[in-house]
């Protein structure tokens, strides 16, 4: 609750920006303490999240960004529940940038880590419950009855059988202090939480009326497209733009930090002109590396004595108790995020103010980037957050917003800067590649006695920080930022272990002796969190080795895992749910089952994949997935996220491979960066194992398990153990 300032000034300063109480502007004053929401005429906004208008419209300002995960629906459901208003009566707006909307656990106003429901579950319900209590108190005063005699139903206050609109009591409510710590509803009284309900954005997204950044058009807007170095970090040595300048519709060609920007009157004209630029680039060190070199560097690091090590128990002692042991190496490649909507931004600068339109996972950083590159103060910048056409971690990196601002400043024009799909694949940020080595021992009872893990690869944290710092601290000179960043890089090289590279590699099971060694090897390809982050590759190594160990122990895959999950009842719970669920399955001849289990983002998941081999092709027919994500707000959205996570993970398992050739990404579009299509998509059954725990992640936890489940099924089908992704039959 600390992030929520329950300012009374919100309505005391009401200025009626738009008549009728309907909306609503965001006003930020230089002291930075202005309320997040300035209510319209006759409206009230008792906190940063809720406005009740004069005509009884309830507006919820979602502090988290909507990129398909359904969080605006989920959070609106919490508000609806405690306000006692049907969810579809609530109008959801994406919040402006304000301290009140910072992520309660992260430093920034951002969305990620499958954390939104977990961190807002109680605080948002609290502000809604307090708001309802305030309205009831006001109603009791206005109606001259005892507050206890009033109740609410379907968005109305009932008094002696008569219904009153919430907005009837705004005037009196505004004279009262907002109560705090109003008791929340008991689970048994929930009307909306825990129910399947249609997403509020489904209609707009099924009729082409949902507005994404790509759809924004403002008066006098020009398109910009950028030619960037094919090798990340390269700079312009020589530019010949004569051909491009002569092309129809081209108005400006300007150099910006990331390359050369072409400005034109239409998308198509900009696209043709940017292709006509002739640029010679000065290439950074990365240009000396191709995939084979990178992998060889990882391998030699693995064989060195380098690295940072954390140990619990003793590997030597664990191995001495083992009756069998095995050591395996795993390779997982770089991957691109490829959200369906390539990144884009519209920036308008005029009269000392700037306005940004973009769908991002980090609107606070976005605002700071506009400030940094326009020289304006953040208080003079308005951010219009929009639907994101997919995030997956890609929209936490916002260089395109810096680019759009630089072009807008250089040309004195309103700029819509669009990345093409080729830009997305070749100039973006990538999931880190890894070599992992696991060395494990088991005893005669099938218990793991030692688990020794090493991961070699690039560090995510410094690149994440490099994306955040310039926007979060827009006034800090670049030199100082660079110093902070290089200090961070050094920290991860020998001092700290970057959790995004190792999370999940030594976890879940009762390993009595375990060790984690990390060796940082960075080649300079920009890295970004990719849906489920480190779990996206660590689960593959861990769960395929567990299957191999089960076979060595002479136990089936369920039983072996069960013996090693005695201290993890929630993971054991989902494992057994899948074991039971599989009994209902009729497995056709030639089809084989592989399983996996893995905890991430505080949720617990088990999966089974039904696979057949058709020639050299791995065909996944069905997936059974059990998840324990604590309290469930909307079961249908949980199922959708699990389905989606599995499809995203299956693309990586079967196809995902970003290859580096002389520092440049070889793949360029969907013809050579293959994405799972509907004819390859398995049916998915989701079992929600609901527990009385607080809600935890659902957007990412379903993903990590599909690659190992499929690999384990492939072994059943072919006898081939696969140690590399994408999964390829010998």
């Amino acid at each position, binding site marked *: 609750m600390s992030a929520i300032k329950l300012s009374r000034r919100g309505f005391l300063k009401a200025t009626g920006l738009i008549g009728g109480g309907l909306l609503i502007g965001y006003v930020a004053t230089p002291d930075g303490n202005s309320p997040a929401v300035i209510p319209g005429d006759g409206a009230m906004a008792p906190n940063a999240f809720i406005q009740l208008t004069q005509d009884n419209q309830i507006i919820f300002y979602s502090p988290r960004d909507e990129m*398909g995960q359904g969080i605006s629906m989920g959070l609106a459901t919490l508000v609806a529940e405690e306000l006692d208003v049907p969810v579809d009566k609530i109008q959801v707006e994406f919040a402006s940038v304000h301290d009140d909307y910072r992520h309660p656990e992260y430093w920034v106003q951002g969305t990620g880590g499958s954390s939104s429901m977990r961190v807002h579950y109680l605080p948002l319900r609290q502000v809604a419950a307090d708001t309802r209590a305030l309205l009831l108190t006001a109603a009791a005063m206005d109606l001259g009855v005892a507050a206890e005699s009033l109740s609410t139903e379907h968005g109305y206050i009932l008094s002696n059988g008569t219904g009153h609109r919430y907005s009837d009591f705004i005037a009196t409510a505004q004279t009262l202090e907002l109560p705090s710590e109003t008791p929340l509803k008991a689970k048994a009284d929930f009307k909306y939480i825990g129910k399947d309900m249609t997403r509020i954005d489904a209609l*707009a*997204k099924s009729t082409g009326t949902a507005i994404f950044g790509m759809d924004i058009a403002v008066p006098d807007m020009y398109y910009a497209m950028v030619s960037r170095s094919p090798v990340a970090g390269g700079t312009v040595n020589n530019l010949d733009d004569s051909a491009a300048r002569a092309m129809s519709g081209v108005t400006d060609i300007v150099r910006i930090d990331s390359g050369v920007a072409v400005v034109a009157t*239409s998308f*198509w004209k900009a696209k043709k002109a940017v292709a006509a630029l002739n640029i010679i680039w000065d290439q950074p060190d990365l240009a000396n590396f191709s995939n084979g070199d990178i992998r060889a560097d990882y391998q030699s690091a693995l064989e060195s004595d380098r690295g940072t090590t954390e140990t619990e128990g003793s590997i030597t002692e664990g191995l001495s108790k083992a009756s069998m042991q095995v050591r395996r190496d795993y390779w997982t490649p770089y991957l691109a995020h490829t959200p369906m909507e*390539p990144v884009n931004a519209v920036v308008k600068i005029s009269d000392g103010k700037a306005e940004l339109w973009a769908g991002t996972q980090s609107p606070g950083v976005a605002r700071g980037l506009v400030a940094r590159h326009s020289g304006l103060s953040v208080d003079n910048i308005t951010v219009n957050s929009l639907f994101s056409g997919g995030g997956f971690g890609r929209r936490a990196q916002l260089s395109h917003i810096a680019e759009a601002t630089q072009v807008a400043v250089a040309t004195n024009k309103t700029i819509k800067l669009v990345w093409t799909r080729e830009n997305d694949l070749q100039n973006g940020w990538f999931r880190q590649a890894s070599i992992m080595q696991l060395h494990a021992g088991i005893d005669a009872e099938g218990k793991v006695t030692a688990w020794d893990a090493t991961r070699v690869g690039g560090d995510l944290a410094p690149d994440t920080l490099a994306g955040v710092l310039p926007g979060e601290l827009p006034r800090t000179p670049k030199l100082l930022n660079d110093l902070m960043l290089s200090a961070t890089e050094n920290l991860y090289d020998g001092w700290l272990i970057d959790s995004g590279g190792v999370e999940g590699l030594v976890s879940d099971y009762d390993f009595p002796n375990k060790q984690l060694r990390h060796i940082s090897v960075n080649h300079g390809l920009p890295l970004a969190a990719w849906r489920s982050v480190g779990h996206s590759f660590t689960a593959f190594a861990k769960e395929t080795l567990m299957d191999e160990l089960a076979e060595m122990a002479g136990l089936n895959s369920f039983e072996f895992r069960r013996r090693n999950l005695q201290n993890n009842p929630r993971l054991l719970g989902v494992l057994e749910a899948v074991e039971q669920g599989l009994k209902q399955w009729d497995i056709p001849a030639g089809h084989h089952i592989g399983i996996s289990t893995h905890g991430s983002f505080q949720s617990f998941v088990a999966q089974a994949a039904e696979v057949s081999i058709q020639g050299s092709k791995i065909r996944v027919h069905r997936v059974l997935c059990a998840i324990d994500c604590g309290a469930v707000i909307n079961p249908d959205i949980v199922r*959708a996220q699990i389905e989606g996570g599995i499809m*995203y993970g299956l693309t990586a398992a079967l196809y995902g491979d970003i290859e580096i050739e002389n520092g440049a990404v070889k793949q360029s579009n969907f*013809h050579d960066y293959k994405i799972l299509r*509907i004819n390859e998509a398995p049916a998915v059954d989701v079992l929600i194992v609901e527990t009385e725990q607080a809600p935890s992640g659902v957007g990412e936890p379903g993903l990590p398990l599909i690659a190992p489940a499929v690999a384990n099924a492939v072994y059943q089908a072919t006898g081939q153990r696969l140690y590399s992704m994408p999964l390829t039959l010998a």
Partner: protein
Amino acid sequence: MIEFILNGKVVQTDDEPDTPLLWVVRDTFKLTGSKFGCGIAKCGACTMHIDGSAQQTCVLPITAVAGKTVTTIEGLGTPDNLHPLQQAWVEQGVPQCGYCQSGQIMSAASLLTDNPNPNEAQLEAAMERNICRCGCYPRIKQAILSVAEQGQSGAVQLATPVAAKAPEGIQS
């Protein structure tokens, strides 16, 4: 000057002849329901109906539709007057990020016009040109099959705006 029929209305444009239909519809005619996803006709986010059949429009030069009828998601149905597929999309909770869904629905509508009762293999063959990165495939399948099973496929033609016959002598 190129003339064609867009969602039932005769329209004209002087965009350069090689401009893809997608960008003419989005930038010139301000209909943004059809999306840019790849620019090489490999993802289907830009799918529209040209003379009633689904086609990817991000590489289709505007000259190719001179005198033809073009239907976009905006012409298929509206929030107040949903096409049965759009209704099914909402009921089955298909969209996640939503960016690909206009293209998915246009491909599905074309499929059901040609084949009101497709089997799963026919459905997959028609829909495999559309990528969904959120992985809504199981629900897309379910939504299309639910419309086919209810025998609502015939409504596809009713809900599609009746396009006027192309005027004589239209040339690029």
